[in-house]
């Protein structure tokens, strides 16, 4: 056994991620087609039975699509599509709850989606057996509707432009609110990682292997070992710093208008109690929600009693109860993808609120959602010698 192998073996034993970097040569200056060709090859050779990646149809549908036909993937698949309508993790949750033996699906995931999948694995909603997690770089995404406006009908050529002129599109900053505050442009947990940030994607893409499953995908491909280019590290670091500053600014704005009981009521004033934010949330996983169960149903005399206490009461009741409780239930797993805000019919600023609340909450437990499969969820574990002042 070589020293190299020994090193990675011990890393594996410790549960750390093994990362071996490679360079994927881009054919014809077209990174989107190159990645699709690779996927088509996986399907043709049976390395994967299906590939889930974002796609864009002639009828204007931009969504994650499960491809099993290599031709179809070349036709409508768009890797790196910077438009997000759903968090792919909530779809993974549906297809990977009961894995079938022998079925292997490669799933393209943005960093926030990959983090959500990790949380769902820990929440026992996703079984990794049949999945190969293919993480991609993500400098930010547009809301699906805005995307049509920005990109027009030819998604492939737009995405190629988008990859080549990263600076320009980052400066325009028409991204979803959550993306403008995102500190994670690269995935944290993956089997295979395909990246382009801070590189010239018309020449080469960056590929990193995070597991044996990922290594298998690379067999027979035209790749060579490459150290991570310094330009890439620098680009990502700068992007992170910028985004962190933007997050601080937005949280400061939030603090001006949302803190304290009265401001909080005002912040949520328009809430319809539609629970969309909960339904689209990838980590709000309960198959039956407490808030949609009979537990909170009330009889007439109860409602009247409550009304009598304050002299009057808003109907329907409990919008703030819903939001604060939801925070208590899922803040430790929140990946700040901001899909909740996109789905809100009355445009409540949930992205920045959840950014602040979840970050503070996770800090208490020295936890970061989706960072690792081995870190237990904060609320299912404990140490006897911690938080001694609470309750004493």
């Amino acid at each position: 056994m070589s020293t190299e192998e020994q090193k990675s073996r011990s890393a594996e034993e410790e549960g750390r991620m093994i990362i071996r970097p490679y360079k994927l040569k881009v054919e014809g200056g077209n990174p989107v087609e190159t990645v699709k060709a690779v996927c088509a090859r996986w399907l043709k050779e049976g390395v994967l039975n299906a590939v889930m990646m974002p796609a864009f149809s002639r009828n204007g549908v931009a969504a994650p699509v499960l491809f099993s036909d290599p031709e179809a993937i070349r036709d409508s698949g768009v890797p790196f599509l910077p438009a997000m309508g759903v968090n792919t993790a909530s779809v993974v949750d549906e297809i990977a709850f009961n894995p079938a033996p022998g079925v292997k699906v490669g799933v393209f995931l943005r960093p926030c989606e990959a983090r959500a999948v990790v949380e769902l694995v820990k929440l026992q909603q996703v079984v990794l057996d049949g999945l190969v997690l293919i993480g991609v770089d993500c400098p930010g995404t547009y809301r699906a509707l805005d995307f049509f406006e920005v990109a027009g009908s030819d998604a492939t050529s737009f995405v190629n432009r988008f990859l080549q002129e990263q600076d320009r599109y980052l400066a325009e900053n028409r991204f979803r609110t959550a993306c403008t505050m995102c500190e994670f442009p690269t995935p944290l947990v993956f089997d295979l990682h395909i990246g382009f940030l801070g590189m010239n994607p018309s020449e080469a893409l960056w590929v990193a292997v995070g597991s044996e499953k990922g290594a298998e995908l690379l067999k027979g491909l035209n790749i060579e070992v490459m150290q991570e280019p310094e330009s890439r590290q620098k680009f990502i670091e700068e992007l992170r710093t910028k985004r962190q500053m933007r997050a601080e600014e937005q949280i400061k704005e939030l603090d001006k208008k949302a803190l304290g009981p009265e401001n909080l009521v005002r912040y949520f004033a328009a809430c319809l109690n539609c629970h969309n934010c909960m339904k689209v949330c990838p980590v709000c996983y309960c198959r039956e929600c407490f808030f949609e169960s009979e537990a909170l149903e009330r009889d007439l005399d109860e409602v009247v009693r409550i009304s009598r206490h304050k002299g009057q009461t808003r109907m329907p009741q409990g919008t703030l109860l819903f939001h604060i409780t939801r925070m208590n239930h899922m803040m430790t797993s929140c990946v700040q993808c901001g899909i909740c805000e996109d789905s809100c019919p009355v445009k409540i600023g949930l992205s920045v609120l959840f950014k602040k609340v979840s970050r503070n909450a996770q800090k208490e437990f020295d936890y970061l959602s989706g960072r690792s499969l081995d870190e237990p969820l904060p609320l299912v574990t404990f140490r006897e010698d911690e938080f001694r002042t609470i309750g004493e």
Partner: protein
Amino acid sequence: MSEFEPRIVGFLCNWCTYAGADLAGTSRIQYPPNMKPIRVMCSAAVDSVYIVRALMEGADGVFIGGCHPGDCHYVSGNYKTRRRMVLFNSIMRSLGLDQERVLLRWISAAEGKKFADTITEFTEKLRKKGPSPFKTLWEV
């Protein structure tokens, strides 16, 4: 105008704090009658929804009583309650809400005096703080 009387909703663990409250009673230790006790099987059974709901509907404070760490009838319930309380407090702080209106205390079945003292102190503290702001907010 009548003086403000805090209204406290108390969740008492069946195995320790409820028995502690019982001991306070049988030992005839005086404490303010402001807390309405609700007997629960474990402090960890108190989901945050019940705490928030009590506060939203007009309670001035919420008290949760559990067994001392290490003494849980269900082995680790109270350790988990403790973590949940850390999370709850963090969320209250992040939202600019008063975390001192929710109190968690470990009180064993033998600590009738501690139970009475805790309720007395908490009642006085809330009396000083005044009514919960949610008491008058009908729009929550």
